[in-house]
């Protein structure tokens, strides 16, 4: 089979899985549904590997194929095919998405075991994978938008999965609305591209763009900025990021798959895919890079103070995506995609470990109430440590190589871009602190009540769960985590998934070590060969110096966290009292929610209220009532004639004819 056939098959399998599980929810036993869902994604991963092997069998320059099944929409001058584009970049994404998804499906089989919505969950999850694969495989902008909107819907459906939870449904709506803002940007960008180039097809657009646009022409800048609007909304970059922390209301496997490993990195993929346009619009690329930089710093500072375990990791996700956006915007395409991959490994793993701990806490997510899980949950804590080390860029873990590669590239590009290196290292320092803050708060120390119970009895606390945000009792009948919670120690499928990811998080970076092997970069480079920025390479020695700095910073960050949270546990509280204003500012997430509320939500509501009170009541209602009254009045007058006296009708008829006859007589003489 050719590469495109494998890709079509990879696209088909999750869709089939989703449909089978959804339609068979009455018939299929829960175990079978979970198996079907996982197997569909697993087979899709096999197909992705098949596509990869096929591509590797070809010459480096011939590794791109377009294929279409049928014409999606055709009209004068418009030719949209249901087509996919298979090249190194899309196959790379295909591998990452299906690989991580398989493991997370496996994890969900155990984690969601006692949930009433088991079938629904797997159907949604398979649908998400289908949408994500559609997004990365799309061969034109129209299918890209279709996939883009589909993942938005899947994200919404899965955030609101526990639909009896008001906070979850609100979070779902928030995510959907903000994502639609991004969708609008993407759609407008596609319109502009079609107007300027006359095609939606990737091949045509990217081939013609350098001839149609001059550098920094306003149209190409506008296109890129609109694309960025879509990318920022999907990838939770400032200021469209506020939905991501709230999205943590969804089940933990969802946070792991959609809001850490795959969907939120779609923006990075989009920028990498359209890099030719960004080369033509360096201003837009710089804007993207600076937004990514701001996001990585802002999110890292917020993650320092978050007390909610999953939300803290969510802010970390934003911060890491900031690195990727910086990477693909300044020209470190391969490095950005490499970081996307390693981040998918270690962040999915961290969420899985967090999910296991949250299950042991009977859905309590506040790290202030957690401690001592290191002894209570050996496997979970070891894997969490692996994920944490990779996230904190501990030397020789995967995050270590990928993050530093982006920063080394920025340094090699020089000039203004040195800012990214310097502040990127600052972000890495913060990353190490907040990661190990979480780990030192949760794992060591005197076991909390739940951890002690686990040590003593091997039993997970099953208190009647309450929503920490609202205090209302959770409804376990329609799905809320279910009557029973599942931790990795008790579930083989969860352990397998986490073990594989832990291995990848620790050693996944070794496939691209500067000066030793450059697997990812060598594989992806032909895609980006047409960008002049791709020619810039940091020298191997500089890369190793960068790695050395990164290692020092990472160790320093871990040391600071160790000092603050293990050696002197009173220090953080004292620090918090001393810097109460700063703490409040960070704890309220830089007041982004409030600012958006003030700038966007309230004016929109005010306009709506004005429209309702004034425009609707007086103008619209006035027009409608006026028309109604005029017609009613006219009808009333005409009604008088309709008396029901047949003889009066006859008289009218005769008089009319007589009048007519008289008229003709007079006019003819």
């Amino acid at each position, binding site marked *: 089979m050719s590469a495109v056939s494998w890709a079509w098959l990879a696209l088909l399998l999750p869709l089939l899985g989703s449909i089978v599980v959804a339609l068979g929810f009455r018939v299929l036993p829960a175990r079978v549904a979970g198996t079907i869902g996982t197997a569909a994604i697993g087979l899709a991963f096999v197909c992705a590997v098949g596509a990869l092997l096929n591509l590797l069998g070809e010459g480096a320059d011939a590794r791109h194929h377009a294929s279409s099944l049928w014409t999606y929409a055709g009209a004068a001058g418009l030719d949209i095919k249901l087509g996919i584009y298979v090249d190194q970049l899309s196959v790379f994404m295909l591998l990452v998405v299906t690989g991580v998804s398989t493991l997370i499906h496996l994890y969900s089989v155990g984690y969601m075991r006692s949930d009433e919505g088991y079938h629904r969950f797997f159907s949604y999850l398979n649908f998400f994978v289908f949408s994500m694969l559609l997004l990365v495989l799309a061969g034109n902008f129209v299918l890209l938008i279709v996939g883009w909107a589909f993942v938005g819907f899947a994200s919404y459906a899965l955030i609101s999965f526990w639909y009896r939870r008001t906070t979850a449904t609100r979070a779902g709506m928030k995510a959907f609305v903000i994502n639609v803002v991004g969708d609008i940007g993407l759609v407008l960008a596609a319109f502009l591209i079609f107007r300027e180039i006359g095609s939606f097809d990737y091949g045509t657009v990217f081939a013609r763009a350098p001839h149609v646009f001059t550098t920094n022409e306003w149209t190409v800048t506008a296109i890129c900025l609109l694309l960025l609007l879509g990318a920022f909304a999907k990838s939770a970059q400032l200021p469209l990021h506020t939905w991501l922390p709230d999205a943590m209301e969804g089940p933990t496997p969802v946070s792991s798959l959609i809001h850490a490993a795959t969907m939120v990195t779609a923006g990075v993929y989009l920028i990498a895919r359209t890099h030719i346009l960004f080369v033509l619009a360096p201003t837009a690329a710089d804007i993207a890079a600076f937004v990514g930089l701001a996001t990585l710093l802002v999110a890292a500072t917020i993650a320092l103070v978050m007390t909610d375990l999953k939300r803290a990791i969510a802010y970390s996700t934003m911060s890491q995506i900031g690195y990727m956006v910086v990477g693909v915007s300044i020209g470190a395409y391969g490095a950005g995609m490499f970081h996307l991959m390693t981040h998918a490994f270690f962040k999915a793993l961290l969420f899985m470990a967090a999910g296991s701990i949250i299950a042991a806490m009977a859905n309590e997510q506040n790290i202030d109430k957690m401690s001592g899980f290191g002894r209570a949950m050996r496997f979970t804590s070891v894997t969490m440590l692996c994920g944490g080390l990779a996230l904190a860029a501990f030397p020789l873990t995967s995050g270590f190589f990928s993050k530093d590669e982006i920063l080394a590239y920025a340094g090699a590009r020089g000039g203004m871009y040195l800012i990214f290196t310097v502040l990127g290292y600052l972000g890495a320092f913060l990353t190490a602190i907040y990661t190990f803050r979480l780990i030192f708060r949760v794992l060591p120390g005197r076991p909390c009540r739940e951890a002690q119970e686990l040590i003593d009895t091997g039993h997970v606390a099953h208190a009647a769960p309450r929503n920490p945000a609202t205090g209302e009792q959770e409804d376990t009948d329609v799905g809320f985590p279910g009557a029973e919670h599942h931790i990795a120690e008790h579930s083989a499928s969860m352990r397998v998934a986490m073990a594989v990811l832990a291995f990848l998080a620790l050693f996944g970076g070794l496939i691209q070590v500067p000066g030793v092997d450059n697997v990812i970069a060598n594989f992806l480079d032909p895609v980006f060969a047409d960008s002049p920025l791709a020619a810039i390479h940091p020298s191997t020695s500089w890369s190793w110096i960068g790695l050395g700095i990164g290692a020092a910073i990472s160790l320093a960050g871990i040391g600071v966290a160790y000092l603050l949270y293990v050696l002197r546990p009173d220090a953080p509280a004292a620090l918090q009292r001393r810097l109460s204003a700063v703490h409040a500012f960070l704890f309220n997430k830089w007041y982004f929610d409030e600012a958006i509320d003030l700038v966007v939500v309230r004016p929109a509501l005010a306009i709506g209220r004005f429209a309702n009170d004034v425009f609707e009541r007086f103008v619209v209602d006035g027009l409608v009532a006026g028309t109604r009254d005029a017609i009613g009045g006219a009808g009333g007058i*005409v*009604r008088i004639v*309709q*008396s*029901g*006296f047949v*003889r009066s009708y*006859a008289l009218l008829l*005769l008089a009319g004819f007589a009048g007519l006859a008289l008229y003709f007589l007079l006019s003819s003489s």
Partner: protein
Amino acid sequence: MSIEWYVVLSALLFATGAMGILIRRSPVVILLCLELMLNAGNLALVAFSRMVGNQQGQVFALVVMVIAACEVVVGLGLIVAIFRRRLPLDIDELRELRG
């Protein structure tokens, strides 16, 4: 005899019929008056036909007679139906069509 006599007679018959329709209330009488008006028209048609000297007017008169017969059938049928339902046989009382 000159044509005037016929036309005047026709006009008188027509006026009589029209007057009957306007002042009588019994549906049967109104139907009769209607027939009278139609026949007044027929008389005029035949008279003019004789005057001009061709037969077209007479053919028209025949057509009018057929139509009049149809009309009587429908009209009498209605009157019988009204009578059967024990409704008053009075045009002014039957005013369901009032708007």
